Structures are given as structure tokens and as C-alpha cells.
């Protein structure tokens, strides 16, 4: 079950006040896909870089590196964010979920199966980010309208133009979710 960030909770009070770290490497702990991982990063490291280069979780893709394509979408406490515009040191104790965490050694997430069934992948570079956004949408809104799906996908760029297949896949995954016992 996804947690929403409560509007009045203090965020990221993960270090004692007065603390100054950097510009060199500093130790941090990231909770990724349910596991606490200790790593050493310079404060200028983005979450996307930490995931890909330090934790070898290369499912998260970086395309624009400017928050403008959503290829790098991961969840922070269940909310989809672009990992290229978050500093790893700023994550604190918020839980990070990546594409690798959606179906760990288990059956595929319904959105993943629906992407395969609907041929919603071409080159695949934008796909992990799209799947994270679609899965977050269904977790919060199990029965979305097509316009809600379009709004949830609004930040994603797919140069191969898979959009219509992606929309069909999400609507199908939502129907299947509803018909399950």
C-alpha cells in the first residue's frame, strides 16, 4: 500500500542540525525497494546517479537530466518524482521505489503485464519511468478515466510515440484489477 506524504509532516530531518557536509563524499543511507543501503556520495549526486552508478539499479533511465521528460521517474514515499532533480542527500528516510522493486522475484506488476500485452514498448528507454507513473496512478486511483490517465502521463516524453498503447495498457490493467476476486 502506498503512503502519501502527509501535508504537515516534517521532511528530511535526517541529519543533526548545524551539520555541514561536502563538498567531498559523505555517508548516507537510502531505503531502496525496502532495503536500507549505505553509500558514500558527494552532495552534488542526484538520486538517479546514486541508483544507477552506486547501486547498479540501471532500470531507472536518464534522458534529459532536467526534469523535462520523466524517464527517470521513481517513487518517493509512493509519489512519482523525477530522480534526476532530487539530490540523493535530500532523500533522507523517505522510501525509494524503483522499477526493480515493482516485481521482485515475483509475478509482474499488472501494469508491466499490460504493457507487454498492448505492445506499449518500442525502444524501451522511456518505459520504466512510464510504468512507475502508471503504477502510482492505479495505486491511488484504481479506476481512472482516460483523461486521468492522460494527466498522469503528462510529464512523459516517448520519442517512439507509444502513447496510445500506453493509455490502452493502463486502462486494461485497471479493468483487470477490478475484475480480480
Amino acid at each position, binding site marked *: 500500500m502506498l503512503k502519501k506524504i502527509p*501535508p504537515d509532516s516534517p521532511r528530511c530531518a*535526517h*541529519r543533526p542540525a*548545524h551539520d555541514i557536509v*561536502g563538498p567531498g563524499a559523505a555517508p548516507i543511507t537510502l531505503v531502496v525497494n525496502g532495503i536500507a543501503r549505505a553509500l558514500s556520495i558527494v*552532495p552534488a549526486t542526484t538520486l538517479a546517479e546514486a541508483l544507477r552508478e552506486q547501486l547498479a539499479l540501471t532500470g531507472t533511465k536518464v534522458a534529459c537530466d532536467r526534469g523535462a521528460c520523466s524517464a527517470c521517474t521513481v517513487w518517493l514515499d509512493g509519489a512519482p*518524482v523525477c530522480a534526476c*532533480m532530487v539530490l540523493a542527500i*535530500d532523500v533522507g528516510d523517505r522510501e525509494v521505489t524503483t522499477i526493480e522493486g515493482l516485481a521482485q522475484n515475483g509475478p509482474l506488476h499488472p501494469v508491466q503485464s499490460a504493457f507487454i500485452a498492448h505492445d506499449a514498448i518500442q525502444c524501451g528507454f522511456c518505459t520504466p519511468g512510464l510504468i512507475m507513473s502508471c503504477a502510482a496512478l492505479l495505486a491511488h486511483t484504481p479506476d481512472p478515466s482516460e483523461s486521468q490517465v492522460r494527466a498522469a502521463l503528462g510529464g512523459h516524453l516517448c520519442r517512439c510515440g507509444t502513447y496510445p498503447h500506453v493509455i490502452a495498457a493502463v486502462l486494461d490493467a485497471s479493468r483487470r484489477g477490478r475484475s480480480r476476486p
Partner: protein
Amino acid sequence: MNRFEWMTPDGIAHAARAATATVATAMISRSGLPATDAAVLKAGGIDLLDLMKEGLLSPHRLINLLSIPGLDRIEPQEGGLRIGPTVTLAQLAAHEAVRARFRALADAAGASASPQIRHLATLGGNLLQRPRCWYFRSRAHHCARKGGDTCFAFAGENQYHAIFDHRGCAIVHPSTCATALVAFGAVLEITGPTGARRAASLEAFLRLPETDLQRENDLLPGEIVTAIRIPAHPLTTRSIHLKQGEIDSFDWPIAEVAVALDLADGICRRASVVLGAAAPAPHRAAQAEAALSGRAIDEALLRTAARAALEGAAPLSRNAYKLPIFEALVRRAIRAAIEA
């Protein structure tokens, strides 16, 4: 991105004392190279990271405002709202009281950027982000706003630039939320490095190039916006924000309008009409407001008001297309507010 120190302040006073520059002052230079000794405030970090990745800003230290508790609350206050500066655009767009009483602000927040950005971007940072002019965002163009000698927009590509108040620089103010907040007469609470507090109306705080070409606002180094206050409005007030982009997804607006009308017994007692993506600061359409105030609004009057909203417009070589878009948006916004 340059390497920097990361500071976790223990409160507002500590953060204010530690900040040596605003992002604007750290970016002004004769040489075209940003200052490398600045300690600047960071909220969601979206605009900061963008500027740093482009090499337009090279701070020595980031002071993380997100680690200060209590700055991310939305509270009712004297019939209005008091919004903490680190409330995210996603929280603002979804908040019940904001949706119910100050719909234009919820609409504006929800129409800004993409869902992924809205979960990170804060309201304070949104109001204080630097402009999107492509010459300003290009390292190859050392324009007047960054301390250079010229504005490249007047003779260059100005299709997304201002149609009002562009003396010396033709940016449009980048904040979608500011358009709605100016329509509501929002006030900023600001604390300075000595602990002194001041309150400033957002409309006066945001500056035109004729007053200051290099800063979009009146924030001084070491000052922190500690709250954004919306004053009480009569319960009969209806508001709406409409955005027109070039595409339907997360694009920046080419035109936007916020309207707040106090309607009672068929009469518009008070009208606020503010245009965004129109001028270097949110542009109050005073002639449109005057046309609507004290009158019963019918189709003819709202058409007159929409034309009056463009009084004083001076389009540049490539952006006259904005005029009919603004006129249509103002008409639609007034109609939508009446029907809301």
C-alpha cells in the same frame, strides 16, 4: 554540476544568517561567470539544480530549507489561508480548503509543470524561480539580466516573451502560481538575517525591469519567505485560473489568466483580473477590472472587459499572436467564474 557543501540549518534564523546571496545576486557578473562563493537557500531544488546543471549558478553551499520543520503547513487564518513556503505544488493542488475557497490557486498549482515536478517543487521556490527566457538560460548569451550589456530578445526570438512592460528586458514572469496569488492579493511574510520581519504584498514584491532589471523580486540576501498569506475574501467570491499552452501536456503557458469575482445578486462587487505569461511580473488588467466592478455581467460586458484587458499591450516582433489568445482566455475565465 559544481560540487558544493550541504548545510542542514537548525531553524529559520540560522538559515537566514548563513545565506550570503540570493540566486539572482549570485548570477550577476560582468565576466559571464557566476559567483563561486555564494551560500544560497534551497527548497525543492528544481530551479537551483536546473541552473547549476547548465553552469549558470555555481554556489559554494546549499542551505536546505526542507529540513526546517513547520514550513510545510496550510492553515486557515482570519478567513483566509496561511501557506508555508515548502508546501509542494501537488499538496496545494489537492488541498480541500484551497480548492473550495481559492480555486484559482489550486488550478494554477495543478497546471504547473508535470506530476513528477509538482511532488518536489515548493510554492516559495515557485514564486522565486528565475525566468525561462532562452537567452537567459543559455551560457552562450551573457544578457543584461545576468550583468551583460544587451537584451537579445528584442531583435531575436521573442515568441514567448512579454507583451507588456518590457523596458530593457522582455521576460515573462515564470511563476504560474504568482498569477493566481496576485489576483487574491496575497502577502508574503519575510524574515531577514537579523531576525527582523516584514510583510510585503506579492504584487509590490515582484518587480518590473524598469525598477530592477536583474532581479524579478525584492528579496535581499539572507531573507527567507516564511509564509504566503491569502487574505479573507467574501464567501461570494468565485475564482478561476486558465492556462493556454502550445500543447496539452506539461508545457509552460503561452498565456494564462486568473480571475476572482465577488458576485452577489447578479452584481459584480469586486473584480480581480490578472494576466500571466504576459509581462515581467503578473499583469493586473486594471481596465478590465474597472469595466466589471459594480455591474451586472452579461455577454456584451465580458467582451468589453476582455478587450480592455489588453489596454497598453505592445507586442514584440513575434508575439502579437498572444493578443487574441489573451482576449479569448479572459472571456472564458469570466464566464467560467460566473458559472462556477
